């Protein structure tokens, strides 16, 4: 609105302009925040509000959901792994009640991982600004919104004012054209992108995903893309809303009503980046060159094709990178030149806001083909609704029969703070987003993979190339 009408603008630019209340003379915009999603970690922000004698200013625009600390073997706080963890869940409920904030607590059928639940409930919509005190809020830009992670000080600011001071990021367009090969998913695209541009590669940028592959992806696939934008250091991931988006959003609980629908869609259609809009950086990926990926190290950038080898740190170009890679290999218990395929595993985790939606579970189920998990393998649906849908479709029974543990929804082993952990030295194929040192428990070794790759690993007991044997497993 504030830029001249004939200046071509990006998707980010349009939504930003629409939400800019004012600009401070020294640079940042005071942005209006449409929705704030909060979870158990918000207790610091609530303590801050209480100390100031404030309450959430716009409780209707705030939604709470318990996910990080929740037990996956039961649905009451008493099922939590320890009394201290139970206390986190209870404190959350108390704060939500105190603040008058709508929330989906443990026993609510709408509960789940915040970034799965918000799109599912129609809380995330095209053209909105949405924040959450969680770095993977970038996930939600998949619907064509500005969605980003904040800390608890910023969260307190949003709760108190429904605004944030923000500097406008630069925009990087990542164009993915071509056709993805059989067995290659949005997860593999992101691991390939991060391996290419580095874990710091998109620092200071918002990523807008474009190209024929992105247009052809379902909303669930786009959510996976945007989810891992933060692993390339971009705080935002975005996809312009299109018919796929509108079809996904329609009829969801907090979405515009049928009477409001046409008007909303007409506006949403104007949001796509204009022809000729300026991007600060352009990156291209050729879909044909992307294989099913796996990580070998302790940063998501340490990713190679499943038929690749553990790289030799001596061949990296900077001294810092050589040192870090060697440290990663020591932690991971790997040697340069080893094949990743066939590497024996101790556990499999299918879950997290990256890959725990219904399509992820379907693609995992398709890999099992009557075989049994030969190592402890757990499946944690991204939300209670996903869980119920998987049960209705018969996926849950299929997983159980194959020896997988079928759990209640939550973050679980992604952050390993609810008591679900991988043991020291244990090697896990995980569909989550971070292979950091100790992320899944002290000493745990994480290999990031797609849901299909994780399911194949569960039934073979090792990292497995799902392209072998006509998409089945050896």
């Amino acid at each position, binding site marked *: 609105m504030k830029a001249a009408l004939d200046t071509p603008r990006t998707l980010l630019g349009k939504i930003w302009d629409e939400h800019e209340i004012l600009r401070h003379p020294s640079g940042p915009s005071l942005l209006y925040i449409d929705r704030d999603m909060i979870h158990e970690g918000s207790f610091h922000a609530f303590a801050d509000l209480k100390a100031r004698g404030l309450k959430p200013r716009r409780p209707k625009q705030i939604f709470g959901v318990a996910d990080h600390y929740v037990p996956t073997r039961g649905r009451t706080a008493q099922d939590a792994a320890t009394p201290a963890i139970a206390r986190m869940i209870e404190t959350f409920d108390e704060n939500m009640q105190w603040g008058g904030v709508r929330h989906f607590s443990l026993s609510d059928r709408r509960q789940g991982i915040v970034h799965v639940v918000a799109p599912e409930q129609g809380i995330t919509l095209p053209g909105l600004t949405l924040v959450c005190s969680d770095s993977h809020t970038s996930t939600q830009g998949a619907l064509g919104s500005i969605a980003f992670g904040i*800390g608890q000080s910023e969260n307190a600011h949003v709760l108190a004012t429904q605004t944030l*001071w923000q500097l406008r990021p630069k925009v990087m367009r990542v164009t993915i054209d071509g056709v993805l090969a059989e067995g290659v998913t949005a997860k593999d695209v992101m691991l390939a992108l991060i391996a290419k541009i580095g874990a710091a590669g998109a*620092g200071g940028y918002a990523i807008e995903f474009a190209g024929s592959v992105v247009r052809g992806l379902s909303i669930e696939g786009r959510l996976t893309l945007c989810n891992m934008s933060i692993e390339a250091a971009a705080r935002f991931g975005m996809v312009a809303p299109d018919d796929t988006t509108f079809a996904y959003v329609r009829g969801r609980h907090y979405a515009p009503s049928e009477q*409001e629908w046409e008007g909303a869609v007409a506006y949403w259609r104007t949001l796509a980046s204009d022809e000729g809009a300026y991007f600060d950086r352009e990156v291209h990926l050729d879909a044909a060159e992307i294989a099913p990926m796996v990580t070998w190290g302790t940063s998501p950038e340490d990713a190679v094709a499943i038929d690749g080898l553990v790289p030799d740190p001596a061949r990296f170009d900077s001294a810092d990178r050589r*040192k870090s890679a060697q440290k990663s290999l020591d932690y991971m218990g790997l040697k340069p030149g080893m094949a990743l395929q066939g590497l024996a595993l101790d556990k499999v985790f299918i879950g997290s806001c990256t890959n725990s939606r219904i399509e992820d579970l379907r693609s995992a189920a398709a890999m099992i083909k009557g075989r049994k998990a030969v190592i402890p393998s757990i499946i944690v649906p991204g939300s209670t609704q996903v869980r119920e849908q998987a049960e209705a479709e018969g996926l849950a029974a299929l997983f159980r029969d194959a020896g997988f543990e079928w759990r209640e929804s939550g973050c679980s082993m992604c952050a390993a703070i609810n008591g679900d952990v991988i043991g020291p030295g244990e090697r896990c194929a995980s569909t989550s987003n971070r292979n*950091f*040192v100790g992320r899944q428990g002290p000493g745990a070794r994480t290999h990031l993979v797609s849901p299909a790759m994780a399911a194949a690993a569960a039934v073979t007991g090792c990292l497995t190339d799902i392209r072998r044997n006509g998409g089945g497993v050896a």
Partner: protein
Amino acid sequence: MRAFVREASKVVVIPGMNCDTDQIIPGRFLKSDRAQGYGQYLFHDIRRTSAGALDEAFPLNQAGAETATILLVEDNFGCGSSREGAVYALVDHGIRAVIGPSFGDIFYNNALKNGLLPVRLPSEICHSLATHLAHAKDGEVVVDLQAAEVVLPGNLGTHPVVIDAFARDCILRGLDEIDMTFTFMEHIQDFEAKRLASHPWLDR
């Protein structure tokens, strides 16, 4: 918020690129009450051996390190989770400034809100400083935000602190951002009334 104006100190070098917030504070400590202080959790797992004892090789465990208030770090420090606990751990340990080539974006913002100054210096300069400190451990660095410069030891010179004017002003004055934003409440309310009228589903 505690203001940051100027800090002069020895420097502890924290090795490793992409030092994520899980390294700065492991997730299992995040449920702790801030009143107990988060300094005890700083780099908890990486500063210990697998047996749980403090690892003498870790720079923060070495003699003299406890009085340092400035850290030198590598690329992409504080990447990963948005947990502000990472900043609380640094602040409660007594760290006032962190110098490095680049920082995780959310970490950077969180730091500024807690009076911890993240200072971006070009990689080559960070490397020269690390090399210098390897031989002269007690070399002092001065971070002067008023003058917007960093004075390095030896012959490494003086370098500008590049920071956006708004953030600099807030942290220099120790300004409370929420109080400041309240002074714009009329603008916020006008804007909000229009927004909710055109997007009534936001108000249900």
